[in-house]
C-alpha cells in the first residue's frame, strides 16, 4: 500500500529540506498543499496510519520550547510509521557547551533521517541543512521563518475559501518578531493573495514594504476589506516594553473585539497560530465563533506536516559543501 489512496500529484519536489517559504516556488508550495489534501483524507479513516516512512527515524530537536508544533510533528511522523525521538534544549548537550553543528552531527551519526529543528536563532535550520545529509525541517527559527505554519495556514484558507488568488489577507499583531508572519507573507504573495500588515508602528516597520505588502496602523482600514484575518499572539515580555505600552492599549487599538467583528465581510475567516490570548488580540466569543478556523488549522497542520515529511523523504541528495563559495 502506498501512502495516500490516491497517489500524490506529480511531484515537483526535489528538496531534502524545508527551511523556509521564501525560496520555494509557487509550484512547490502547491505540491505540498495538494499532497496534504491527500493525507488529510487518511486522518478521517478508521486506521489512520500509513507505512510510508516505516523504518525511518525522525528527531524532534527543539532547542526552543514548543508544545503544539512538536506534538504535531510527532503525530505526523507516527501516522507515517516513522520512529520518533524528542530532544529538548534542557536535555541536549547544547547546555554543556556543545555546538549546534556537533549535536546535529551526532544525531546524524545515529542515522536520523529527519531532524525537525525549532531554534531561537534565525538561520539555524539553513545552517544545519547545509551541513547534514539528513533532511532538516524548520519548525521555527527565531523571527525568520516557520514554513509549516504558513503551509497549514494557506492550506486552511484554500480549503475554506477555495482559492488564494485575489484574496486579501490581513496579518495583525507583532509582525517584527514573528516568523509566522514572514512565512505567511512569502506564501500568500507567491500564491497570488494581497497582504496587509496591521499593528503598532514599532512592530510593523516600513522595511517590510519592499516585499510587496501593504502596511497600516489602523485596524479599521482592513475590517471591511479583508477576506482573512490572521491574528498573531501578542506578547508583552521584557524585550517588548519599548515597543508598545501594554496589552490594554494594544487591545483597544488592534484587538478583534465583537464590535469590530460585526463589520467583517460575510464569510471572512479568522485565524490564529495559537496559543491564543483570549481578550487580548481576540475576544473570547470571536475565537469560538463560526468564523474562527483556529482548530481547523491544528487539524490541517497534521496533514501538512505529513506531506512535508513524505515529500522530503523522497529526495536523495549528495552531501552538501560545508561552506558556500564566496
Amino acid at each position, binding site marked *: 500500500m502506498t501512502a495516500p489512496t490516491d497517489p500524490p500529484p506529480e511531484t515537483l519536489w526535489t528538496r531534502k529540506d524545508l527551511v523556509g517559504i521564501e525560496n520555494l516556488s509557487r509550484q512547490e508550495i502547491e505540491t505540498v498543499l495538494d499532497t496534504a489534501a491527500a493525507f488529510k483524507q487518511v486522518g478521517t479513516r478508521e486506521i489512520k496510519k500509513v507505512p510510508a516512512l516505516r523504518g525511518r527515524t525522525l528527531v524532534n530537536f527543539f532547542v526552543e520550547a514548543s508544545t503544539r508544533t512538536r506534538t504535531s510533528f510527532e503525530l505526523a511522523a507516527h501516522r507515517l510509521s516513522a520512529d520518533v525521538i524528542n530532544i529538548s534544549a534542557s536535555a541536549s548537550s547544547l547546555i554543556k557547551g556543545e555546538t549546534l553543528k556537533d549535536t546535529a552531527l551526532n544525531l546524524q551519526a545515529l542515522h536520523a533521517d529527519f531532524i525537525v529543528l525549532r531554534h531561537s536563532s534565525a538561520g539555524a535550520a539553513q*545552517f544545519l541543512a547545509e551541513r547534514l545529509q539528513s533532511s532538516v525541517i524548520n519548525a521555527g527559527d527565531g523571527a525568520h521563518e516557520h514554513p509549516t505554519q504558513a503551509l497549514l495556514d494557506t492550506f486552511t484558507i484554500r480549503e475554506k475559501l477555495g482559492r488564494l488568488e485575489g484574496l486579501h489577507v490581513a496579518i495583525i499583531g507583532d509582525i517584527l518578531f514573528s516568523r509566522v508572519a514572514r512565512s505567511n507573507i512569502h506564501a500568500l504573495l507567491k500564491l497570488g493573495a494581497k497582504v496587509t500588515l496591521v499593528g503598532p508602528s514599532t512592530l510593523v516597520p516600513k522595511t517590510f514594504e519592499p516585499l510587496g505588502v501593504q502596511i497600516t496602523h489602523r485596524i479599521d482600514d482592513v475590517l471591511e476589506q479583508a477576506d482573512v484575518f490572521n491574528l498573531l499572539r501578542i506578547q508583552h515580555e521584557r524585550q517588548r516594553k519599548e515597543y508598545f505600552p501594554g496589552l490594554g492599549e494594544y487591545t483597544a487599538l488592534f484587538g478583534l473585539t465583537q464590535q469590530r467583528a460585526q463589520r467583517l465581510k460575510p464569510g471572512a475567516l479568522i485565524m490564529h497560530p495559537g496559543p491564543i490570548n483570549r481578550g487580548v488580540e481576540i475576544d473570547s466569543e470571536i475565537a469560538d465563533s463560526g468564523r474562527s478556523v483556529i482548530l481547523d488549522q491544528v487539524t490541517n497542520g497534521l496533514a501538512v506536516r505529513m506531506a512535508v515529511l513524505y515529500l522530503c523523504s523522497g529526495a536523495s541528495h549528495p552531501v552538501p559543501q560545508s561552506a558556500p563559495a564566496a
Partner: protein
Amino acid sequence: MSCTLIRNGRILDPANHVDQKGDLLLIDGKIAPLSALPAGGPTETIDATGLVVAPGLIDLHVHLREPGQSAKETIASGTRAAAAGGFTSVVCMPNTSPAVDNPSVVTWIAEKARAEACVNVFPTGAITKGLAGEELAPIGSMHKAGIVALTDDGRCVQNHELMRRALEYARMFGLPVMDHCQDYNLVGKGVMHEGHVSTVLGLPGWPAIGEEIIVQRNALLAETCGTPIHCQHLSSGGSVRILREARARGIPLSGEICPHHIALTDESIRSFDSNFKMNPPLRTQRDIDTLIEGVADGTITVLASDHAPHCSYEKEVEFDLAPFGILGLETELGLFLKILVHERKAVSLARVIAMLTVEPARLLNLDRGTLSVGAPADVTLIDPDAEWVHDKNASASRSRNTPFHGWELKGRAVRTIVSGRTVWELNGGFPGQS
C-alpha cells in the same frame, strides 16, 4: 654593515611628495642617501622594475589576540599575516585576555613582539579598566610603557562624562584616543545592519544611527576638550557627513574605513554565513558610495583592516551567536586598490599609499610612514596592477574567517622590508622557512 639597494622602482613617498622612477638605498636599517652607496657596492640588490617602492604600510587597527586568545591568533602569526599583506607596522587593539589596561600587559606584548614578531608592533591601551567603561585605566603608566593610543575597541565608553575626562587626561600625554562608535541602547542585540534585509531574515538590526550618534558625540567632545579623536571602522554614510562637517570646522576628529565596508553589503547575509558578520555591520550600497566619497574628498584619512581572527569552531555556529569580526591583513591592500583605485577611480594610488602610511603615522606620532633619509628602513614593494585570487588556506593567520576566499583582487605587495631586512616575499615566503 648591511646595505640594500632597491633599483629602478617607482619611488612613491607621499610624505615627501615624491613620485618618480629611481633607486632607494637602505643602510643598517635606515633610509640612506644614494650618495652613501659604498665603493664596493651594496650587499644586496633588489630589482624593483615595474614595482612601486612605498614606505612600509601601517595598519592601525589589528587584533593580534595575545595575550590570552592564542587559538585565534598570536603575535607571531598575526605579524606574519601583516607582512604577507605588505604591512611593516601594526597597531594592536587592547581587547585581549587580560585586557591591555595596565603597564605590565603593555610590556608583555612589547617583549613578545621583540622575540616573535616579524613586523613592528605598536600596542594601544584601554581607556577604561577591563574595557568596562566605568573607571579610567592607568593611562599615564601605560604611556610610559609605550602605548601609542587609547581605545576601548570592541567596546565603546557610553558615559559621556567619563569619555570627556579620559580625553582631557589623555591630552596631558599627547595620546590620541580612538573610538569604536556604538551606542549600546540603540544597537541592543543587533547583529546586522537594520534595514530591509534584516527584516526579511528576522535577525536583530544594528541601526546606522547607533554609530552616527557616537560620531556626533565625539565631534562635540573633541571640540570641547581639544583632544583628537579617531573614529574607528566607520560603516555608515551618515557618519561621513558628520565627520566632514566637524573637520570643516577645525575639530580634531578623524576617521578610518575598512575594506569590507566598501566591498560588501548586508545582502551577503542572506546566506547566514557568519564570515559576513562583523561589528559595525555591512551596510548598503548607498553607505558604500558615501564612504568612498569620503575617501575621495579627504574626509576619511586612514585605511585599516580591523583584522579580527576567530577560530572556525567559534564562527561556525548560529549567525546571531557567532563572534563579530573577519580577517583583514592579507586582503586589505588588494581590496582597497581594486575598489578605490581600479574600479571606482575615487583616488590615486599615491593617495591610497598615503592613507596607509603617512596618515596613520602622523595620527599616532609614529616615526614611520616615510622614505625620508634617516627614517627606519621599512619599505613595501607593491605591484599595483597584479591580478590575483585570494586563497584563505594559504593564509599566515591562525584563523580562516574571511568572506574573501576565492575573490579576484587587483594590486598586492610583493616584498615587505622591515628595518632593512626582507621579512616576506611573494615568491619566497618568510625567510628561514622551508
